[in-house]
């Protein structure tokens, strides 16, 4: 499948062009992207540290999941809202960037994993009796999120 025409179209969108032609727009949007990264990290860590047994311990993981979910969703929305314009401004570079594809693959996997398997493990009553399941769920989540963060950072170096 030839993706070049699609990425070319993205690159030529008015938003992409406006960001490229501006001195400061990329920087400002990127700063919001980083802010989103920080908030996302916080919500993910609340649940994953709980599952690993090294964060909050007295509250059930299900309670932490429910309490932090609006912030998780909010961070993801902020990350998409800032990430998509950044992508549009350099779509052609992304098409040929290995890091970009690592990031997109990890992102797809981690979102699927979080809202299917992780959510089920967190909400199930038996989670506390099965430490191996708990811990491996947290580790998979952290590894996949790190794939997103690694790819994201390395797009900038390519």
């Amino acid at each position, binding site marked *: 499948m030839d993706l070049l025409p699609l990425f070319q179209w993205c690159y030529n969108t008015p938003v992409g062009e406006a960001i490229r032609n501006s001195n400061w727009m990329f920087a400002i949007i990127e700063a919001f992207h980083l802010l989103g990264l920080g908030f996302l990290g916080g919500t993910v*860590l609340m649940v994953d540290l709980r599952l690993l047994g090294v964060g909050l311990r007295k509250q059930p993981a299900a309670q932490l999941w429910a309490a932090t979910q609006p912030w998780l969703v909010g961070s993801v929305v902020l990350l998409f809202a800032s990430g998509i314009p950044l992508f549009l401004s350099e779509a052609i570079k992304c098409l040929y960037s290995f890091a970009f594809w690592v990031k997109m693959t990890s992102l797809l996997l981690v979102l699927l994993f979080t809202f299917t398997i992780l959510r089920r493990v967190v909400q199930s009553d038996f989670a506390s009796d099965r430490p191996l399941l708990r811990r491996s769920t947290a580790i998979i989540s952290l590894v996949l999120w790190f794939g997103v963060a690694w790819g994201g950072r390395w797009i900038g170096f390519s």
Partner: protein
Amino acid sequence: MSLLSFFEQLAELPWSVELHESQYAYSIIESIHVWTLCLFFGTIAMVDLRLLGLTMRGVPVSELARRVLPWTVAGFILMVITGTLLVFAIPVRTYQSIFFRGKMLLLVLAGLNVWLFHSRVYPKVAAWDADGVPPRAARVAGAVSLVLWSCIIFSGRMIAYNWFDCDRQPQLAIINFLTSCAPASGQ
């Protein structure tokens, strides 16, 4: 010795030059600095949001402080180590950066907020530990913390851009004053 000559001498050190010219070391240190945002800013933001009554209202504040703040401290230590190395790699330009100076000032204010919270507000936590929405003083500390750390992320990110660099003249007089930059006349 002036601050400028201190940073100029740092720049002369062999390992400052090596770090600056390294193929991977600088990128890796910078990446760790950015990724640690998740650990440092992420955990402190969750505590701040709890102080504001905006998340985890069922979790006592002292429980969060005990189980989550150690991760924040670990993140902060990592931030300081990687951040210091980044300054060592590019000493003079960073010292003159308006955003770096702004960031250092904001860091002092954030530190002051941490100190005020832990010396004035947190010692009385027993009285409101389980409250879904903590009292005003705690909410203010949480809000101030969120705003300051967000501004620190912004100014930190902007250090990478050279809009106000000393070697880019002409600049407004106020910019040259704030960066203690003395451009040669006629530039």
